[in-house]
């Protein structure tokens, strides 16, 4: 077993994952440096989410290794991985899954409270982050009363509040319109850079990937250097079936 390079905070080697037999990742290796923003690109179904789940310890790869700060994630038990996720990692879903019974600041303060932080300190930190993400005015609203973009920002605040070492964002802007998308991404990347948080950002559009320091492309579960898909030319068979039928 080879020890990972020192400057990589997170390091994966030859990950193989199958979901009930259907291959999701076939031998993906990558290293993530400390403090960088890494975009994982590729079209839908190329294994981005699975890769992020493997890296964050939610999913154990069938083959391959994941190392976090020279600690093997792939050999940890579920409780250790759970503690790792709680203490070191942040996670942003595609759709903002907030706890519907809690209001915005309680949702954002939840990870801190789960870590055992006091209520007052958690509230202060949560309100600070909500303010920084321009949603300080809806700190007392429940999720159902918020707009989708506001909910997603609450989810981002929830991921940022405990100051994680690595933040995983699985297409965090997919359900948003373009104006919201750019704003949310900019706030996310700015916050990450100012706090030195490593970000792994799954995305399928090139604009989002442009904000990152580096892009890793996946295609059909393999790592590729560039995604070369055949150009979307004219619809297939259109000429043959036009007027002559």
């Amino acid at each position, binding site marked *: 077993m080879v020890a990972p390079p020192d400057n990589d905070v997170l390091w994966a080697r030859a990950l193989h994952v199958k979901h009930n037999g259907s291959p999701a990742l076939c031998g993906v290796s990558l290293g993530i440096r400390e403090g960088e923003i890494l975009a994982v690109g590729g079209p839908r179904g190329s294994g981005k989410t699975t890769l992020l789940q493997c890296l964050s310890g939610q999913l154990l790869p069938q083959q391959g290794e994941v190392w976090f700060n020279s600690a093997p994630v792939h050999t940890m038990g579920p409780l250790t991985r759970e503690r790792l996720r709680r203490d070191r990692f942040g996670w942003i879903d595609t*759709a903002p899954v907030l*706890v519907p*019974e809690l209001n915005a600041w309680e949702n954002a303060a*939840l*990870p801190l*409270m*789960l870590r055992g932080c006091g209520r007052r300190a958690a509230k202060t930190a949560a309100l600070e982050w909500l303010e920084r993400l321009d949603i300080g005015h809806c700190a007392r609203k429940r999720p159902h009363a918020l707009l989708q973009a506001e909910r997603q920002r609450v989810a981002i605040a929830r991921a940022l509040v405990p100051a994680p070492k690595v933040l995983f964002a699985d297409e965090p802007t997919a359900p948003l319109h373009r104006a919201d998308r750019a704003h949310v991404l900019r706030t996310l990347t700015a916050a990450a850079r100012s706090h030195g948080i490593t970000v792994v950002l799954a995305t399928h559009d090139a604009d989002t990937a442009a904000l990152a320091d580096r892009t890793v492309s996946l295609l059909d579960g393999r790592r590729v250097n560039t995604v070369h898909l055949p150009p979307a030319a004219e619809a297939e068979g259109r000429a043959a079936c036009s007027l002559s039928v």
Partner: protein
Amino acid sequence: MLALRLARGAHPLVQLRRLLVAAASAGTGFLLLCALGYAMAHPDPSGGAALRLLWCLAPAAATVHFAVAVARTDPGTRPRPGLSAIGLGPGRLMAISAVTTALSTTLGSMLALLVFLHLRGDLPGVSFDGHATAFLASDHPLPLPAAVTLLLLVPLAASVASAVALRPRGAGPARPRRTGADGTSPRKPARTRAKAGPHADQPEHPLDPQQPAPPLPAPGGLPWGTAVLAAGLAVEAYASRSEAAPGLALPGRFAGGPAGVLGGWALTALGLILAAPAITHLCGQLLQAVRPGVVRLLAGRVLQGEARRIGRPLGVVCAVASGAYAMATVYSGARPSFGPLSTLGALLVAGCTLATLLTAAVEAKHARADTTAALLRLGAPTTVLRSAALLRTGALLAAFGPLTWAVAELAALPLAR
């Protein structure tokens, strides 16, 4: 046929719930058949037979209640995006759930008929020639239409009730209102939302996963429930003073109170059922009241959110438990010999109400599955979630245990004299 296939391919736990419904239906059907048998054996005094039939209402109601709860929890009848896209929307799903309910309850009824016929000795095999032939009426031929009518009661009521409980609503285009001609807004929008029924926990567009459902308003049955409860206790006390009217005595050598006392007890039970959601909500509010940590926060808020779903069956369980406690107190000295049928009925009622409560708890758990998964992704320890659930249960026990005991004591007080 689709209902059959869906029913066949379900999870073992779901099948177990359906089997429990079938068993409850079988028990109720057997009780109804026994009432018929008693009527055949005693053709002259029709009062006793009618009384037995009336007493069958309680197990029948409990069975229907349970069947509806199971139909609502059934994963086969939950709106699913893929099925809705091919036209199997809420309307068809309602029909499927009604058919599934009818299937399991009819299965139970058939079983009841088989057992009844077997005990009468109509079937080849060992017949049961014990002392209990009074309600079997083995020397009379069984009138088949009457038996079938009685046996169809529970399946019909259960499937109609589950269809009504699961009927699609709220998603259609806005209809012109009767009073809306002059452009007046609907009177109480909040109230119509509050009555939006079993899937009210789901948003108006149940297939839109992005929009979380707005929380239901706090259940407000506490004043009414308390009033009805107090009225029931008062009626009971008043009726027990006039020692007369040998009314609705429970058959099977079980000397019951007069009709007034029973009416009062029914009012008490109704009051408990009305007040229970509000009390549950109050419990949740108290749990998360002063500077809560994460466990109390989750437990309290979730309890507030689930007050309607959990509270109603919990109220029924409390009513049944208080009734059982009152009966046990009244008859503790006399050592009454419960007939086998009374025992069966009491077991049915108690089992069905408890199973309904458990089913409602399962339903609540399923409704929160997404949130739980998100919490686990955050790295929430399962111990936190478990202790929140335990705290909820403990709070409910602490609130409803003494309440049930107090109501039962008060209800037993006039009876014991």
